[in-house]
C-alpha cells in the first residue's frame, strides 16, 4: 500500500504530557484538533436538540393550522407580560454568556466569573418566573392545584377555569366579557355566550395547553441542565482551569446556553403572541 508513515509516540503512557498541556487528550494530535472536534460535536448535538423540539413544533403547526381561532383564543390566557420579561431575561443572559466566553478568551478570570455568575442569576430568575406562571395555572384547578397533585391524581370536580390539561381541564369561553356580572348563569349569556359551554379535555383548547406545557417544560429541563453546566464552568474557572489557550468548555457551554435561548425565542411568539 502506498502510504508512508511517520513516527508517532507508541503509547499514551509513554508520550506523556511534555509538549502540551494536561488538557489535551491523547487521541488528538493537536489542541486545535481537539477544540475543533469538541465544537463540531456540540454543534451536531445542538442539531439533535433542535430536532427534538422539532417534533413538538410539527404537532404545533398541524394543530394550529387546524384550529387557528382556538390558538388565538388560548394565547390570551397565557401571561404575556411575564413571558416578555422572561424573554428579556434570557436575551440578557445570552449576552452575559457571550461576554463570559470573550473573557475566557482574553484570560480575564474575574470577568469570566462575574459573567457566569450573572448568567446563573438570570437563569434562576427565568425558572422562577416560569414556576410562578405554572403555579398560576395550577392554582385555578380544583383537585390538582399543584403539579404534584396532578401527577398523583386525586378526585376532582370542575371549577370555572383550569388550563392544565387533565381531568379538570376547563377552558372558559368569554369573548371580551371582562365586565360581565358575577353569577354563573348570568355571565357570558348576556354577551351571547353560554357559561356552561366550557370545552373540557376533549377540546382542541386542551391541545394548545398540552403543547404549551410540554414545550416550555422541556425547555425548562434544558434550562436546569444549562444552569448545571454553567455552575460547573464557574467552579472550574474559579479553580483556574481555563487559560486563553484552553477554554473550549466555556465555549461549548456557551453554545448550549445560546441554544436554550434561541429555542425560547421561538417558543415565546408561538405560544404567547399568536392572538
Amino acid at each position, binding site marked *: *500500500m*502506498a*502510504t*508512508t*508513515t*511517520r*513516527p*508517532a509516540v*507508541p*503509547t*499514551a503512557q509513554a508520550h506523556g504530557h511534555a509538549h502540551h498541556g494536561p488538557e489535551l*487528550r*491523547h*487521541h*488528538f*494530535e493537536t489542541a486545535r*484538533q481537539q477544540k*475543533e*472536534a469538541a465544537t*463540531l*460535536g456540540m454543534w*451536531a*448535538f445542538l*442539531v*439533535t*436538540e433542535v*430536532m*427534538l*423540539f*422539532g*417534533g*413538538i413544533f*410539527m*404537532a404545533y403547526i*398541524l*394543530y394550529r393550522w*387546524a384550529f387557528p381561532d382556538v390558538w388565538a383564543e388560548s394565547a390570551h390566557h397565557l401571561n404575556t407580560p411575564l413571558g416578555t420579561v422572561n424573554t428579556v431575561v434570557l436575551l440578557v443572559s445570552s449576552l452575559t454568556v457571550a461576554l463570559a466566553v470573550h473573557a475566557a478568551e482574553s484570560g480575564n478570570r474575574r470577568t469570566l466569573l462575574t459573567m457566569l455568575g450573572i448568567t446563573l442569576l438570570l437563569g434562576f430568575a427565568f425558572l422562577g418566573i416560569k414556576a410562578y406562571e405554572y403555579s398560576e395555572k395550577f392554582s385555578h384547578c380544583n383537585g390538582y392545584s399543584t403539579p404534584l397533585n*396532578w*401527577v398523583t*391524581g386525586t378526585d376532582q370536580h370542575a371549577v370555572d377555569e383550569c388550563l392544565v*390539561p*387533565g*381531568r379538570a*381541564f376547563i377552558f372558559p369561553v368569554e369573548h371580551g366579557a371582562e365586565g360581565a356580572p358575577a353569577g354563573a348563569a348570568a355571565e357570558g349569556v348576556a354577551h351571547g355566550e353560554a357559561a356552561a359551554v366550557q370545552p373540557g*379535555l*376533549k*377540546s*382542541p*383548547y*386542551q*391541545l394548545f395547553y*398540552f*403543547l404549551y406545557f*410540554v414545550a416550555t417544560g*422541556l425547555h425548562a429541563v434544558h434550562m436546569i441542565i444549562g444552569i448545571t453546566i454553567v455552575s460547573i464552568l464557574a467552579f472550574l474557572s474559579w479553580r483556574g482551569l481555563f487559560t486563553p489557550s484552553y477554554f473550549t468548555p466555556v465555549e461549548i457551554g456557551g453554545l448550549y446556553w445560546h441554544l436554550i435561548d434561541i429555542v425560547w425565542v421561538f417558543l415565546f411568539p408561538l405560544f404567547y403572541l399568536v392572538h
Partner: protein
Amino acid sequence: MATTALPQSTYLHDDTPGLWAWIKSWLFTVDHKRIAILYLLSINFFFLLGGLAATVVRIELVTPQGDLMSSDVYNRAFTLHGVIMVFFFLIPVIPSVLGNFLVPLMIGARDLAFPRINLLSWYLYMFGGIFALSAAVLGGVDTGWTFYTPFSSTYSNSNVILTIAGAFIMGFSSIATGLNFIVTIHKMRAPGMTWFRLPLFIWSHYATSLIIVLATPVVGITLLLVAIERIWGVGIFDPALGGDPVLFQHLFWFYSHPAVYIMILPGFGVISELIATFSRKRIFGYEFIAFSSMAIAILGFLVWGHHMFVSSQSVYASLIFSFITMLVAIPSAIKVFNWTATLYKGSISYRTPMLYALGFIGLFVIGGLTGIFLGVVAVDIHVTDTYFVVAHFHYVMVGGTIMAYLGGLHYWWPKMTGRMYNEVWGGISALIVFVGFNMTFFPQFVLGYLGMPRRYHVYPEEFQILHVLSTAGASILAIGFIIPIIYLMGSLIAGKPAGDNPWDATGLEWQTSSPPPTHNFHETPIVTTEAYAYPPEAAELDARSWRPGSPL
C-alpha cells in the same frame, strides 16, 4: 501453538493481573475496539433473543387455527421480535460493532473523537435493552413495534411504557454513536486522508450518522408524548382528547423510515469493501457510490408518507410521497450496477465474506425491486399491511443488513481477533443462510399478494401450505445463523493466526497488526493514494499466481 504467534501488545491484552481488574478494564474501557467487542457480544445476544421470538411466531403459523398459543401471547411474541430486532439489533448492529471498530482504523485515527461518550452509548444501549427486556419479562407488550396510537396510548393493557422507555434510551445511544462518527470523520482523519480518499465504508457511515442525528430526536419526543398520554391521560394523539392519531404516524415514520436507511446504508459500505477486496481491483464508480449514499440519506427524509397511503392521508400527499419514493430507487440501483461492474475484469475469489456479499446483492435486488411495488400507490393499497410488506422489509433488513453484517464480521474477524476461522464451514453457512432465507421469505410475497394480513396468527386455511414452506425455510435459516456462532467461537481457541493482512486488502486497517494495538497504529499513517488503490495489474497477478490448492 498458534497463540504464541499473535502480537503481544494488542488492545485485547491487559497489563494488570486479576479477574476484577480484567473485568474493570473492559467495563470502563474507552477504547473504541473494546467497546465494539462489548457491542458485538450484547447485540448478538439481542439478535438471538429476537430470533427466539421469531421462532415462536413461525411455529405458531404452521397451522391456521392459532392452537399453539393464545392471541395475546402471539401478539407479544411478534412485538418482542419487532422491537428487539429493529431497535436493539438492526439499527445499531453495523455502526456499533463494525463501525466502532473500524471507523478510527480506516481513517488513521487513534480513537473516536469522544471515547467516553462512546462508552456511554454502550451503557445507554444496555440500559435501554434492560428496559425492553423487563417489559417482556413482566408480561410483554402487544402494540407491535410501531406503537400506533390510540392503541398504544389508551387501549393496550401491556407494558407499553417500559418498552417505550427502552426504545427512547436506546435512541440516545444511537445519537451518541452518530455524533461521534460525524466528528471523527470530519476532524480525525490522518494526514492526506481527503474526503475522496475515504473508503466507501466511511462514506456510508457518515451518511448513516447524519440520519441518526437528524431523525432519532424526533422519535424520542414522539415516544415521550405517547408515554405522557398513556400515563396521565393528557396528550395530542388520542381523538378522545381532541387529537389526531395520524399525527403520531407522521412523526413516527419521520424517524422510522430514515431508520430503515440507518440499517441498510452501513451495509452498503461493508459490501463496497468486500467487492473491491475480493475482486482485487478498485471499486467501479467510487464517486457515484459515495454520493448515492448521501442522496439516499437526504431523500430518505422525504418519503415517510409512503407508509401511510391507506391511513387517510390526503391523495395529493400520497402522490408526492410516492413520487419521491420512486426517486430513491435510482441511487440504490446505481450502487448495485457499480458493484456488478466492479466484478468485470477482476480476479474473483469465493472467500466467505465474498459469498455473503454476493448473496447480499441478490437479496437486496429483490428487496429493492419489491420496494418499487410498494411505492406505486395503487399496488400498495392492496399489499400494504400484508405479508408482501413483511417479505419486502425482511429482504432488505435480513437479506441486506444481516448478510452485510455477517459478511463484514467474517471479513474483519481476523483483524478483530487475530485469528482465522474455518472457511469451509464459512462457505457452507453462507449458502445455508441464502437458501433458508429465500425459502422463508419468498413464499411471503405470494402470501401477501393473496391478501394475508400481517400480525395474524389465525388465517384462512388456503394460506397454510405457503406458511409451512416459510416456517421450514426459517428452520434452515436458523441453522445457518447458528453454525457461524460455533465456528467463530472455535476460531478463538484453535484458529490459525491470521497475520496483519490475510486478504491482501488495501485500507489502513490492514496496515496495523491483527489484533491492533491499543492506539491502533504504532506509527501515524500518512495517506497518499485513493481508496482501493490496487495497482492495475493486481488482478492479473493474483490470477496468475493461483494454483490448484490455493483458496478458491
